[in-house]
């Protein structure tokens, strides 16, 4: 990494923030939440890969930790939906 590259990532994050705020005022309805969540996921991925340096990490253990956390959370929330969705 270099200083310019860090600033470039930051700029990308700011742009994505602008996009997500704009998308909210465009009122996409039901898929609106999917769009903002997707953009949030992209922003987080940028932070994790480049600011938290996981892109350059060699150890497998560290690279799979975030996917494990996401999977775990997805399972907890998803399986709770099998209750809430079908009551």
């Amino acid at each position, binding site marked *: 990494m270099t200083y310019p590259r860090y600033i470039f990532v930051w700029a990308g994050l700011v742009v994505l923030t602008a996009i997500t705020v704009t998308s909210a005022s465009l009122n996409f309805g039901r898929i609106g939440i999917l769009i903002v969540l997707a953009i949030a996921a992209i922003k987080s991925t940028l932070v994790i890969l480049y600011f938290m340096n996981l892109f350059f990490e060699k150890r497998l*253990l560290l690279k799979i930790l975030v996917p*494990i*956390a996401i999977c*775990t959370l997805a*399972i*907890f929330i998803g*399986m*709770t939906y*099998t*209750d*809430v*969705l*079908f*009551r």
Partner: protein
Amino acid sequence: MDEHGGGNGHPHNHFPWFATSEGKPAGLIGFLTSTNHKRIGTLYLVPILSFFSIAVILGVLMRIQMLSPNSKFLAGTLYNQIFTLHGVIMIFLVVIPAIPTIFGNFFLPILIGGKDMAFPRLNLFTWYLYIAGAVILLVSLLTGKGPADTGWTFYVPYSLRTTVNVPFAVFGVFILGMSSILTGLNIVTTVHMERAPGMKFSRLPLSIWGIYATAWVQVLATPVIGITMVLILVERIFGIGVFDPSKGGDPLLYQHLFWIYSHPAVYIMILPAMGVISDIIPVFSRKNIFGYKTIAFSSLAIASVGSLVWGHHMYVSGQSDTAGIVFSLLTFLVAVPSAIKVFNWVATLYKGSIKMDPPFLYALGFIALFAIGGLTGLILGALSTDVHTHDTYFVVGHFHYVIFGGMGFGLFAALHYWFPKMWGKTYNEKFAVVAFIVLFVGFNVFYMTILILGWAGMPRRYYSYLPQFTDLQRIATYGSWIMVAGLVMMFGNLLHGLFRGKKAEDNPWGGATLEWQIPSPPAEHSFAETPVVTHGPYVFSDDNGDDLGKKEPHEQQPQSKR
């Protein structure tokens, strides 16, 4: 540094350096600030066994109340508070921490050939968190309107409205949860980073696989109960509404959050115990474990699939039928890896050279009792039969079979197995066998009767009952007395050995794992030199067919050429 023991005093009465204030660092302050993993394991041992004894006494009191349907001994709210305390102490102060913090701390670094845990200072900090959590729970006992009467499950909305000391209790649980998370974090890092040369993952003792799988669950699941306890506090203080139906809150979501942790928690309880059994069975059959890789993977499978089944505590709560079906299917699935372990243990015994020493007896007891508990779990896991058995003594019988018969006997097995290594003393093995028999008989008279009572319809958490249950209730109580007698005999025997036992050899059982290659008790630095591992953990004879376990430990270096 390699001298047996290290403290002053007479050879027959001195304790290992880590159990006295004469060790390194010296003095009481040195004792309480030492980051040595053996010391920290000992530091955990004392409060955990003390809390166990207290909780057993609470259980005895409950059984006395149940001697007669009209008993006023412990009636009403007091009974609710007693079973809440019994549950909270047993689950959070004893069963969840016991094997990972006592034997994990003491033996994990040794079993992997490492120097200490990855984060020794963090390790000591987790002990202080444990003590802080225990103190907070104690405060909840003695202040305000008395201890919580909600059951250890703290279900809303009752836990939001009852005026007893719920805030202190849930805050204590939160602190204990932090201790558990940090312990798990330490264990995962240690297993990945501190192994000796040659200690590949495929050569790890299965007790390490068990503790390792447990540690992942500790890190990933415990935070959920952390936030849930915080939410009870926030709801009580600020009335945010998330669990309050009058504000749109859904009490079922509390149950989801609670059981998302508390079901994996039972795997935190049982996986280390299963690991201990996997270590013990090969030693006392003098035979390599059957299906090492399968047992190792089954630990990971239980940890992962076991995190998907929490809804089976909620079949009759009002959750959707769809959820019930999904959770029931997965519950049946998680029984498979547990059964695989039982099959592999039994297969290991087949054509083995069996030695019926106390550790092995407790291991056999584990297998029998866990199997019974597991089978009753299938009845509870099936939607239809659970409607009949939910919130009855059948559930109580089930979980005491798996937790007490399983984890408890695993703990006792570990105590008897590693006793000579930890303390450098022996205990009376014949008396240990007698104590085991008394304990085993009493346990089954007690809890089998509980299962029968539950099937007959006796509800749980009730301080009174219909007259037709009286005879069975009495038998259960008498069984509990026999069981407690067995416990007293067992602990008394071990304590006697601790104070007056003969000196132990370095490898009294002939084990092939690394802890038996070092002196009993271990010195401050467990290994004089970093060991180089060249074979698996249950290899009992070298290329010449000579039994490795029978040689003097110092002749065994370098390791066999397998």
